[in-house]
């Protein structure tokens, strides 16, 4: 292995080749960064095509099919078109931060890729606090919205920005609460070690509720359907980026597509075992393939969701978060903490050295899974009771209306208290 100069031992090779250690280190870091950061950029060009194609199929259309084979080069053509479009800056705009906003938008998404583990050996930065890094970079997204909305000097942009910020802030709460669960199970925040911990059993089986909440909250963070009301044309024209044109608008759009892809990767890493799969330790590059497959499954699920679900209203959006997702994620956190404690007290955790064994992980997985099922069951029952009460109330009201009509057909009024 010492003779082969691969990316894994590049630093050592360069030093042995007579280079200054500091410089060699820097060069290997730089190469790693460029490789990691270019990957999402290249992928997103392809993914826009995938998205348009799938949306078209769901809606019984053909989708892009003119530029290149099967329309594959459509995104490239779009990018070139945006590059030659005039870039208009509104007169009242705050020039510097107006130009800064699309850059922040794009950079904040690229930054997420610094901690994604691709294979057992290839990871950008194996930060010990990787999960929180993800949260921190995510919170920069609110800054970009605020800056874009404010600097455009447009009422619609500002209103859209405020709505968007309210949405992003709200959905960050269930997101973090759901993220605590895998951290608690694995006892680590490093994404690479979280993946290692899932070699025996994926966390989606140990914490299905947390996985679902994580995915839904992330959908809202990206602003994907059914949570895409930050670009609701009917209400706020196009949201915070209304005054942007040309490639600056393209930056916002590319950032959104990239964000959507990135959250699929992170869902796959945190809950679906990341690169773990058969033969991954014999051939590390295989991890890349497994990760890609899992990401693709999540991504296609998201696309079908986008093509089939209607948009929610803003009061429904807020109520759904604060009165449904947040309470459930708190209860889920409590239940998981309690069950983990019980599991450990009963000695159902895998014996040392058996952590990556599927069978050894089964007992605790079953306990946690049943616990999650109970949570879901209770929630579903509560919602059904609530809905029944609502329905009975509606029926009683309409019956009262009919009764009033029968007694005095001339005076059709709503019953008192309405």
């Amino acid at each position, binding site marked *: 292995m010492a003779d082969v100069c691969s990316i894994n031992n590049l630093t050592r090779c360069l030093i042995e080749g007579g280079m200054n250690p*500091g410089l060699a280190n820097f060069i290997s870091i730089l190469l790693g960064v460029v490789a990691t950061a270019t990957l999402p950029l290249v992928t997103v060009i392809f993914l826009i095509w995938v998205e348009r194609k799938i949306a078209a199929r769901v809606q019984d259309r053909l989708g892009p099919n003119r530029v290149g084979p099967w329309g594959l080069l459509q995104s490239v053509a779009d990018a070139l078109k945006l590059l030659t479009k005039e870039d208009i800056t509104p007169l009242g705009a705050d020039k510097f*931060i107006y130009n800064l906003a699309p850059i922040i938008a794009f950079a904040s998404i690229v930054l997420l890729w610094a901690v994604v583990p691709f294979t057992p050996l290839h990871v950008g930065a194996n*930060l*010990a*606090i990787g999960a*929180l*890094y993800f*949260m*921190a970079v*995510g*919170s*920069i997204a*609110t*800054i970009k919205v*605020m*800056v874009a909305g*404010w600097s455009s000097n447009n009422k619609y942009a500002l209103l859209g920005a*405020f709505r968007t*910020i309210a949405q992003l*802030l709200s959905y*960050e709460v269930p997101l973090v609460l759901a993220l605590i669960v895998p951290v608690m199970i694995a*006892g680590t*925040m490093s994404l690479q070690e979280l993946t290692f911990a899932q070699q025996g059993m994926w966390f989606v089986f140990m914490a299905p509720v947390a996985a679902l909440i994580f995915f839904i909250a992330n959908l809202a963070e990206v602003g994907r359907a059914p949570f895409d009301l930050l670009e609701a044309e009917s209400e706020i024209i196009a949201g915070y980026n209304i005054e942007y044109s040309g490639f600056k608008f393209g930056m916002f759009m590319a950032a959104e597509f990239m964000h959507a892809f990135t959250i699929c990767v992170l869902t796959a890493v945190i809950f679906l075992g990341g690169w773990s799969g058969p033969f991954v330790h014999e051939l590390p590059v295989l991890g890349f393939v497994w990760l890609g497959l899992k990401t693709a499954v999540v991504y296609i699920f998201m696309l079908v969701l986008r093509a089939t679900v209607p948009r929610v209203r803003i009061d429904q959006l807020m109520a759904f978060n604060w009165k449904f997702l947040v309470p459930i994620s708190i209860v889920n956190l409590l239940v998981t903490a309690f069950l983990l404690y019980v599991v450990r007290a009963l000695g159902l955790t895998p014996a040392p050295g058996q952590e990556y064994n599927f069978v050894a992980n089964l007992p605790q997985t079953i306990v946690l899974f049943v616990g999650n099922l109970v949570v879901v069951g209770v929630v579903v029952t509560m919602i059904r009771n609530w809905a029944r009460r609502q329905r009975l109330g509606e029926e009683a009201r309409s019956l009262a209306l009919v009764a009033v009509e029968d007694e005095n057909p001339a005076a059709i009024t709503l019953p008192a208290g309405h």
Partner: protein
Amino acid sequence: MLEFNVQTLAFLLFSLFVLGGAAGVVTTRNLIHATLYLILSLFGVAGLFVLMSAPFLAVVQVVVYIGAIAILIVFAVMLTRSMTRLRDLYNHQWAASAVVAVLLFVLLAVGVILPVWGVNGAQTPTEVSDVVADTVELGKALVDRNQYVLPFELASLLLTAAMIGAIVVARDDE
């Protein structure tokens, strides 16, 4: 003195962010710009935390200050329409304040920091350990009955109380 390496370079860069951002905060008329300067300054503080091997605090700094407090300040600026009536930036005592601030800095630097912890100071740490407690240790310390469990619970209580108080104060009374 400062030796020249990557860490020193990063330190100087982050210090520039911190102090430059802070100077922007106190001198800018436009409050939204001031908030952006505040974000820059707080980001620099997060960078300094990373250099001091406290990555958890650095990330929390970004999440709490930049992600939440800065946004809250923007909301407050918008709600109070502070942007529309930009009157005088400073009050009548600004000159005295500037003198006080500069004097305080000189006093701290010359009187306390350099003699006590400076080069050949009275209590300059001679050798700095490379072993640093990590976040797991922090987690244990926060809920250890002999350490910080009481402040930990009180923190939760304080935040709950602050939220209740702020909601009561900020809402329109129907």
